């Protein structure tokens, strides 16, 4: 555990024997127990793939109200057992390495880029990093980036959004005049990525920009929504007060069932994505992509579009 900034820390993880290795820039899903409940989150790997100790590292920024990120940054103690998925993601550099590169990042979006730079910087000769953070102190990996910039291994443009405002695509002409000639990788908040993608598209350079989105779709909670039964290929519109069991049965979906009052666990099915609300106490269960959380359909109602493995 190494603190990086006020709100970010790096965690080193010793993988088990079934770990197959990763490419720089990829991410892994990490399962971590918070208050006894296992939660899975995806984090970019920032370690060197050739490191001799075989340790993996991730750098986590605590987001406001983030249950898992705050737990990792503030409460996690060395020696804790965490669970790993295999690596995934295609935010990787091509072979041969491009001659001129531009990395556009903001906040914790620097993490996959750090994974790339730590592993590939020796093979990259003309590198520009444009990084946004609220203040100088908030720049994750600030020391290492400035160190590289100081020794001429890359050109670093830091933008402090608290005083200078958010980076807009129009600023690029001034900051990196030759951005059109560079192969670009961008990672950061959705707003930044959307703006850059349309900017590159306007310049007809879409294929030169590679982006990494931490959250492909924001999960929103609400009342009711569409519930998809993936195996039986049915989509049913549900209100926020009817148990999913009833919703499915009325639409002719084959549902496992039992006591219909929340005690027997005979109806549990995996929620792959979406939000459900426990009708007894209003408790929300949220599943993001890659999750598979068992829910009791007889006491759960849809609280935002759901995907159920049935």
């Amino acid at each position: 555990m190494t603190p990086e900034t006020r709100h970010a820390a790096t965690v080193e993880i010793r993988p088990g024997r079934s770990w197959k290795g990763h490419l720089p820039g990829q991410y892994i899903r990490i399962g971590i127990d918070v208050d006894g409940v296992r939660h899975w989150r995806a984090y970019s790997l920032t370690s060197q793939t050739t490191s001799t100790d075989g340790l993996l590292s991730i750098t986590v920024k605590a987001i406001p109200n983030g249950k898992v990120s705050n737990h990792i940054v503030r409460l996690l103690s060395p020696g804790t057992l965490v669970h790993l998925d295999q690596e995934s993601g295609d935010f990787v550099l091509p072979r041969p390495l491009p001659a001129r590169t531009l990395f556009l990042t903001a906040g914790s979006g620097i993490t996959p880029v750090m994974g790339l730079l730590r592993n590939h910087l020796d093979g990259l000769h003309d590198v520009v990093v444009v990084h946004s953070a609220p203040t100088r102190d908030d720049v994750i990996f600030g020391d290492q980036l400035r160190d590289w910039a100081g020794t001429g291994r890359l050109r670093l443009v830091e933008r402090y959004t608290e005083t200078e405002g958010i980076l807009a695509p129009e600023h690029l002409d001034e900051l990196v005049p030759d951005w059109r000639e560079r192969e670009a990788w961008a990672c950061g908040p959705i707003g930044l990525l959307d703006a850059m993608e349309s900017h590159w598209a306007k310049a007809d350079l879409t294929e030169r920009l590679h982006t990494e989105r931490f959250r492909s779709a924001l999960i929103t909670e609400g009342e009711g929504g569409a519930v998809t039964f993936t195996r039986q290929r049915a989509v049913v519109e549900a209100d926020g007060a009817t148990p999913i069991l009833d919703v499915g049965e009325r639409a002719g979906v084959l549902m496992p069932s039992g006591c219909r009052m929340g005690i027997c666990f005979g109806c549990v099915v995996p929620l792959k994505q979406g939000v459900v609300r426990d009708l007894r106490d209003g408790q929300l269960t949220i599943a993001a992509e890659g999750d598979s959380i068992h829910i009791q359909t007889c006491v759960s109602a849809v609280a935002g579009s759901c995907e159920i493995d049935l």
Partner: protein
Amino acid sequence: MTDPTPTMVTAPKARRVSNRLNVVTTERRHVPKPSGKPDPTAHLSAADVETLARELDALRQEVLRSRGTEDAAYIRKLIDVQRKLELGSRAVLLFSLFPPAWLVGTAGLAVAKILENMEIGHNVLHGQWDWMRDPKIHSAVWEWDHASPADLWKRSHNELHHTYTNVLGRDNDLGYGIMRVDEDQRWVPMCLGQPLWNFITACFFQYAIAAYDLQLGKQLKSRGNKEQFHRDGRSVLRKIGRQMRKDYLVHPLLSGPSFFHTLAANFTANLVRNLWAHSVIMCGHFPEGVETFAKNSIDGETRGEWYLRQMIGSANISGNKAMHIMTGNLSHQIEHHLFPDLPSNRYAEIAPTIQEICSRYGLSYTSGSLPRQLGSAWKQVIKLSLPNDFSIRNTAKWVLRRRPERRRCIGTEAQATAEQCPNISTCK
């Protein structure tokens, strides 16, 4: 989604209430039982039942709020201890030729097997630990050291017994279909042998449960779903085969010259567990003071009424912490039946509140030491092996005047009224 054009169906908005989830008690009703026993909840108004339900809901919520790291550590530690105890005992039994090793190994294995079935298996299969989202300690995947496959057991226990607790004709746990444990159950001559049946069941309890979960009795009477029976039957036989292979073949073989001693040790450990589990389970619903309910009394039952039924339909066993763990916290049967999905390690702390609620609402909270409750349950089994109004004269009458139309009347006794069956008192 694999299909690019899924069918879009709109569920109708109107909601037919099909469960006890959010139905409010608006009136009290009582369906009398054939024995004419009074309704122990008659003094409660519909509003009382609702207040009681909200109090219990709030209590559950309180436990859910504080459920966390310590509870997770409890079950993991327990599983760890159980695994080590079982492994250690089996290792000692490799030398079971030596009497001290046999004794120590058998005792250790019996305790390990009891822990595995009761505090771990039973409770994990109830979904008490599903909230941890640990894919290894989850009701959907857990399999236990028991003749009855987890899936089958969950259906007959979690779904049928826990939903229909002590409802005559609905909850087969009331005497497992082979015994009469309540005055309102029909007496048949087979009941005369029930003290013996009960003892035999106790010795082979895990197989009796497997047969029970299979609804073997129903099948023998040529009722029930044949196809499902065959499917379930195969799964039970496979499970029993695996269990037998482990305890009576592989482990003894590994013991080499101690083959027969290890075999005997495993048999003994299984026997001890059978007797223990059977005794604990008998104390849950059979002792005197536990209420039963008429079959149609649960039509349109509300959550509050369900809670009521669980409270007065179960009995606790008093004892220390070790006792609670060894019974899988079924010593807190009342708490378990009210909240079957709360982690078992939390029942003890809510027990005083439940007891206080019971006394405030004028409801019985049946509890006693293991010998007392077990004695009471056995007394019921023995007493009820005879008809309710047993006397030599009545029995002689019953035998002498047994005619076909009377037998029909006995058969439908639950629905029989005095008009249809003038001799209802002798029928019972």
